[in-house]
């Protein structure tokens, strides 16, 4: 069964298949595969972090954390800044 659930990702509405984990969402956003450990295939860090409803989800738990209906997700990275 492939039902769809609504999320808010970086303040934008997005629908994803139910059963998706944080890891699936990050992989889709970054356009690259993400390992069980929350790193790139070659083991290098992705440089991103995820918060679900203002709670940071450690990358080691991305693949075990399911996305709940209506969850507010923030995916952040480093940008230029003083």
């Amino acid at each position: 069964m492939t039902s769809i659930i609504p999320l808010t990702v970086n303040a934008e509405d997005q629908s994803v298949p139910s059963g998706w984990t944080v890891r699936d969402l990050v992989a889709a956003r970054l356009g690259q595969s993400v390992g069980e450990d929350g790193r790139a295939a070659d083991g290098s860090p992705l440089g991103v972090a995820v918060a679900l409803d203002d709670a940071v989800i450690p990358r080691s738990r991305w693949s075990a954390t399911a996305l709940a209906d209506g969850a507010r997700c923030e995916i952040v990275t480093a940008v230029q800044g003083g």
Partner: protein
Amino acid sequence: MTKTDTTTDNRTGTTAGTTAGTTADRAGMGAAAPADDPLVIAGESLSSRLIMGTGGATDLAALERALVASGTALTTVAMRRFSTQTRGSVFEMVRRLGIRVLPNTAGCYSVRDALLTAELAREALETDWVKLEVIADDETLLPDGVELLEATEELVHRGFTVLPYTSDDPALARRLEDAGAAAVMPLGSPIGTGLGILNPHNIELICERANVPVVLDAGIGTASDAALAMELGCSAVLVASAVTRAQDPEAMARAMDLAVRAGRAAAGAGRIPRRRLALASSAFDGLIDPVQQSEGSGREAESW
């Protein structure tokens, strides 16, 4: 300049090294600052006393040249929502250059915002270090001391190495140190103004009393401002706009590196005291006496 007080000044200059860095930092300093005189923050040695911010640069290639020219070992980044534009830009570059990254909490106005941003930065960049900024309003970008102190206490409690961006208030700097800050980062003047160090006396007081490194942060306009910060006793200087928005960022980055080294060396060398009146540097002994020579000659002294 605000420091042109004309009375003899015993605060500086009577003992070599009285204004040279914090107590902890001063211990290893000889008369001439040695080349292997690293900045140590939270037990980590950094090979340069110039910290570069990455904000304000128009293109990444120019930023990279400036970072390399500055010789910096630590550089700040901000945390923002991921987009395909931001993807893999500054983080990958800093990693490639082997420069340690210092995430900031720029844009945070409350303890709550700052804590979440710091946690996200720790997770994304795999560092416990955070340059803590809690801003009062977006017009002055001045630190909100009350929120800053509370956020420092909480982040220290959560195991972060906290470098708070603070005002030039010696009392607040002391409170932040007591709360466990690994360094304190007082402003010279508001962010991006390039007004230099508006209250050198306060910066000097902060340095004299601190037991953690003092990093002059914000307001630097040009190299002499950075040198002054070091002469006042700061352990390091952070520059962003002064370099990234200069007409030639790479040349300004190099100038800042030299200025920080020069200021550090001067602080260690022990400046002369300020005096109200002149003090000749040539001896008076053995001075010829033209009046005696012409005595009794019966003729007018020739015009010289």
